[in-house]
């Protein structure tokens, strides 16, 4: 087994494909007969014996034509991959248990269409693509994630059997892809803002109810705060007003590792924190994140949320410390 494994590694030796686009050259394309090809060969052998036995000249011709067809089919299967240009795109983070999606732009520089290109990560579902003459398309390769952290989806297998299905040509691509996988969110009630006991960050009372007046709306104001009733009353006015609340910092919320139940294991506690971040983000609250060895100051918005989630995703991978 060992020599075989070594041979395998030598044949398919490939590091990461750092250059972009990745161009499929003959060194990268492998081709073997399929089971159907083997069946075809068997049928041809039997037909040849029949043709010899009954002295059928046209039978010989038929068998030879089919041999030629198989050879030509092999060339065409190879060319279905040859010369393709693939440009890997950037992937978006995903939650564990969801599909991570990796965009890949495929370009056909040739004046023949390509058909039935099957892309897949190892043991992941297959994406099939047809490309017209000199066409390009972007496909999104799914990868079912299981655990949080930095995901290396591994190599892509690009294979095809077109046109005759007698040969199976494939190529391995290893784009420098990685994707941050957030912990799977576990939905539990948000901790009370006071629970952490960091009173110094909370000036004033819980300010959501504390109506302080109206002001003209700015684009960044959440729609929840628009004074719809006022707007309805003042129908002549173009401008929307938003409700202002007293104590802008009262929304501030610290989501703290120590607030999570200590009896759960670490991954679950990260999941609880993830759930909290999602809930707090949903409520447009200002929140901060406190992990052992890492603090993220309270803020809000998509960028902040991504920063927090990434911190959770990479927690314990040694990257958290120098990121802040």
């Amino acid at each position: 087994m060992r020599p075989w494994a070594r041979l395998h590694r030598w044949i398919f030796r490939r590091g990461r494909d750092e250059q972009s686009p990745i161009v499929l050259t003959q060194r990268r394309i492998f081709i073997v007969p399929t089971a159907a090809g083997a069946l075809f060969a068997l049928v041809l052998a039997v037909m040849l014996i029949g043709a010899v036995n009954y002295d059928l000249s046209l039978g010989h011709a038929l068998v030879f034509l089919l041999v030629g067809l198989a050879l030509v089919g092999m060339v065409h299967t190879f060319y279905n991959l040859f010369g393709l240009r693939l440009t890997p795109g950037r992937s978006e983070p995903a939650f564990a248990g969801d599909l991570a999606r990796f965009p890949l732009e495929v370009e056909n520089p040739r004046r023949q269409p390509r058909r039935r290109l099957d892309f897949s990560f190892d043991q992941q579902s297959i994406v099939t693509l047809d490309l017209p003459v000199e066409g390009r398309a972007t496909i999104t390769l799914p990868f079912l994630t299981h655990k949080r952290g930095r995901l290396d989806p591994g190599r892509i297998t690009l294979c095809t059997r077109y046109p005759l299905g007698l040969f199976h040509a494939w190529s391995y691509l290893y784009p420098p892809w990685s994707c941050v996988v957030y912990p799977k969110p576990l939905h539990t009630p948000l901790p009370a803002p006071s629970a952490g006991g960091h009173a110094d960050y909370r000036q004033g009372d819980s300010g959501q109810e504390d109506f302080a007046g109206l002001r003209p709306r700015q684009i960044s104001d959440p729609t929840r705060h628009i004074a719809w009733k006022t707007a309805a009353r003042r129908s002549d006015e173009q401008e929307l007003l938003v409700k202002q609340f007293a104590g802008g910092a009262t929304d501030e919320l610290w989501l703290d590792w120590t607030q999570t139940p200590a009896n759960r294991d670490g991954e679950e506690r990260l999941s609880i924190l993830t759930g909290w971040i999602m809930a707090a983000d949903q409520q447009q609250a200002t929140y901060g994140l406190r992990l052992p060895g890492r603090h993220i100051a309270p803020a809000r918005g998509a960028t902040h949320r991504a920063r927090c989630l990434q911190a959770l995703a990479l927690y314990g991978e040694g990257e958290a410390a120098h990121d802040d």
Partner: protein
Amino acid sequence: MTTKQEPIDPGTPPWLLVVALATASPHAEHLPPWLTLLVAGALVWRAWLWHRRWRLPPGWCLALLVLASVAGIAWQFNGLLGREAGVSMLVLFMALKPLEMNTRRDALVVVMLGFFLLLTHYLYSQSIATGLWLLASCTLLTAALIRLHGGAQPFADIAGQAGLLLLQALPFMLILYLLFPRISGPLWGLPQDAHGGRSGLSNEMAPGSISNLILSGAIAFRSRFVGEIPEKTELYWRGPVFDDYDGFTWHPAAPKIKLPTSEPVIEVIGTEHRYTSIVEAHNQRWLLALDLATSRPPEAVLAPTLEVLSHEPLRARARFSFASSVDYRANRVEAPAILQQALSLPAEVNPRSRALASKWRSLPPAGITEAALSLFRQEDFHYTLRPPLLGANPIDEFLFGTRRGFCEHYASAFVFLMRAAGVPARVVTGYQGGEMNPVDGYLVIRQSDAHAWAEVWLAGEGWVRFDPTAAVAPSRIEQGIATALPSGEPLPDIVRLDADWLRQVRNRWEAANNTWNQWVLGYNPQRQRDVLSRLGLPNPDWRSMSASLALLCGLVLLVVTLWTLPRRRPVDPVERAWQNYCARLGQHGIDRFPWEGPLAFAQRVASQRPELAALTNEAACCYAGLRYGRSNGEQLYRLQECVRRLPPHGRRKA
């Protein structure tokens, strides 16, 4: 692999049903009718299921159907071995497999069965039409494979792709066909039904046996002469010789008498004619050489009765080379057993003919033959394909009663008279004449050229041919059967073509068939050796053949590969001229930045190199005009002019 079990998509079944129909339907001709109906029913059923998007029948139902049909086939053909039963089974499976076609693998089995069924057609016919059918069906099967593996596409795309693949496969077929070492089959004993009935001369002759053969326009053999072709009246092609008469039918005497073991002695007088014959299979041993063969192929012998016989019955069309001389002395010294046989007559039949012949006994042999011939010439004899039936004394009735007969009547009566008059004589059958096909230079001899004549042994001269038919109907020998017979006789139409253009069409068609026969059907190990040594591969053995096979196939594969290689897009001449200009300017030390537009570049050149300003400005204006303005050919010409006018020698200064 997981992909094999994937279900076929709903657009595929029609393709596979058409495949099944195309490959199975030509067999309807020789299948039992119940099987044809069953096959048609199964295909229609499957098409209906597809049309209504209904589920396929359950497995047990199909299993019952298969068992019942196989039992039916076994009953029909007394077992499942043999050609007919095997073909029936294949057709049956081809029709039933689509009924359990759920996955791609099932569909593949249908296509493979289709390829196999194509082969079985050639058991029945290998004509040009079947060959063309081969190409069409192959295209269809290939298209089905493409549809199966390529998904839905417009019909024209699939057909075009299939055609392209087959076109590229053709060179491989030719190379393999020429060079693949041929083995002469069979590899094992063929089933009983391998060789069907064939028409041709028979090994006995009774009144009516040749006139029946005349009704066929089929080709018996073709001959091509190396040099001059003998006169038409000399073209007697010798078949079986009969010297035993039972009062009604003529037989060869060979089994009854002891024949000499020494070779016949033939003295050649005139020139020898060399020729090659391609003889159609007739399941007999005679090879129909021109009278009289002086040299013959190694696989044949010269019989004591002077006809050329092959060692084995001729079961397939074959080529033979002969030399013959039409002017000869044959067996001036003849074995007594043969002479005695050539005089024997059954007792007590045809008394009037005996009486007539006994009057000639006093004449010399040459006088006897002349007397008999003048009888035919002077009396009111008719040459016809539809003679009246003859009774117990057929020759008496013919000579003195009906006087209407065909060549076998005349030959038979003539030989009878000779023997009754004491002159050794025998009946020779074969073909007479032939028609030149100007398209390929082959002399075509049809079954309708079948003939019978007489041979008389004269002391000092040996066996001499006499043709009593020529005495009655000289045009039969000089011009052929069509002119000799009165109109209204049931001659095959193909022999009676009056219109010139019809004759032309027939000649071309038959020449094409002849080429096809020689190159396609008759391409056996011997012919392969001949062809290869003519192509410069002397004494080819399987080693050199395999080597050249691999080499040529590799070459063709390379050509096909390069042919399909992505070609570089043609460079736009405007772009090329501008690139050239900029490259030359680069030699002067000014490089255009990739982002720099032509006019901006021209301005920069003007400030850095005033002496090149005007030229560069013109080139840039032309280029910009061609690219962004309304282009015309004159501007392109001016741009190319600018490239030439730019001094090339200004080497980049360090």
